[in-house]
C-alpha cells in the first residue's frame, strides 16, 4: 500500500507518545471530572459514606465498651465521632480532595504540587 510509510511513521510517533506517557504518568490526569463516570460514581458514594461512618464508629465504640466494661459510654461518644468522620469524608469528596487528609487551604501554591490525584 502507498501510505504504508506514513502509517509506520505515525505508529512510531504514537509509540513515542505512549512511552512518554508511561514515564510521566500523572501529567494528563489533573482534571477531576475526567470522565462522566467519575461524576456518576460520586452520587452513590455520599449516602454510603455517611451511614458507614456511623455504623463503624458505633461498632468501634461497642468493642471498646466490651473490652473496658463501660457499656453505653464509648458507644455513644463514637457514634457521634463516626457521624463526624462520615461528614468529613463527604466534605473531602465534594471539594474534590479525594481521600487526602488535612485541612490546608486548597489554593495555597505550596500545596499544589503535593499528592495530586
Amino acid at each position: 500500500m502507498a501510505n504504508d510509510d506514513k502509517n509506520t511513521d505515525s505508529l512510531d510517533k504514537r509509540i513515542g507518545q505512549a512511552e512518554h506517557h508511561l514515564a510521566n504518568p500523572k501529567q494528563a490526569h489533573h482534571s477531576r471530572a475526567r470522565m462522566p463516570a467519575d461524576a456518576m460514581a460520586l452520587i452513590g458514594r455520599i449516602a454510603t459514606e455517611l451511614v458507614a461512618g456511623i455504623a463503624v464508629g458505633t461498632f468501634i465504640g461497642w468493642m471498646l465498651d466490651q473490652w473496658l466494661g463501660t457499656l453505653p459510654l464509648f458507644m455513644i461518644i463514637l457514634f457521634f465521632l463516626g457521624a463526624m468522620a462520615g461528614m468529613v469524608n463527604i466534605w473531602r469528596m465534594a471539594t474534590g480532595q479525594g481521600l487526602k487528609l488535612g485541612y490546608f487551604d486548597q489554593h495555597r501554591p505550596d500545596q499544589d504540587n503535593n499528592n495530586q490525584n
Partner: protein
Amino acid sequence: MHSPVEQFTIKSLMQLELFGYDVSFSNSALFMMLAVIVSTLFLTFAMRGRNMVPGRLQGAAEMMYEFISDMVSGTVGSEGRPYFPFIFTLFVFLLFGNMLGLIPYSYTFTSQIVVTFVLALFIFIGVTLIAIFKHGTHFLTFFVPPGAPKVLIPFLIIIEVVSYFVRPVSLSVRLFANMLAGHTMLKVFAGLAVMISGAGGVYAPGAILPFLALVGLTGLEVLVAALQAYVFTILTCMYLNDAIHLH
C-alpha cells in the same frame, strides 16, 4: 408469585464439609467460578490473534486493559505498576460477576455482603500492610491531619482513625447495595408486569407500562454493573495511592 428477594437465596449444589465447617459448593460459588472461567476464556480468546490492528474482541480486551492501566498510572503513578495485575484481576472479576448476574436465571454473587466485604477487607488489610512496610512507624502520621489547630489534634486523630476504618465498610456496602437494590427492582417490575397481565380483561394491556420500565431498568443495570466495578477498582487505587505516598 415469587418474592423479589428470592433470587438472592444461597442454594448449595454440592454438600461438602471440612473440619466441621460447612463449605458446600453453592450457586454463589458456581457463579464466581464462572466469572473467572468466562473472563479468562474471553481474554485469551480475544487476544489469540495478537494483531497490530485489533478486531472487535481484541479491541474490547485491549480497551479494558488500557482503561485499568490508565487508572492505575493516573491515580497511583508509576509506583503503582507492580499492583496492576491485582487491580486488573479485581476489575475483570467484578465486571464479569456483575454482568453475568444480569443474565436471566443466573446468580449475582456481588449482591452478597459477605463476598464484597471479604474482598474489601482483603484490600484494606493488604493496603495497610503495604503502607506499614513502605513507611514503618511513619505510617502513624497518616492519622495526624496536617494544617489542623494544635488543640483539636487529639480529637481529629480519633475522627481520622474512624474514617480510616470506614473504608472497607463503605467500599463493600456500595457495591453490595447497588446490586441488591437493582436486582430487587428488576424483579419487582417484572412481577408487576406478570400480575397485571394475569388480571386479564381490560387491565391486561396495562402490563406494557411496567414492562417498558423493565426494559429501561435493565439498561440502567448494565450501566450500574460496569460503574460499580469501576468505582470499586478506582477506590482500591486511591487507597493504594494513600498507602504508597502517604501525604
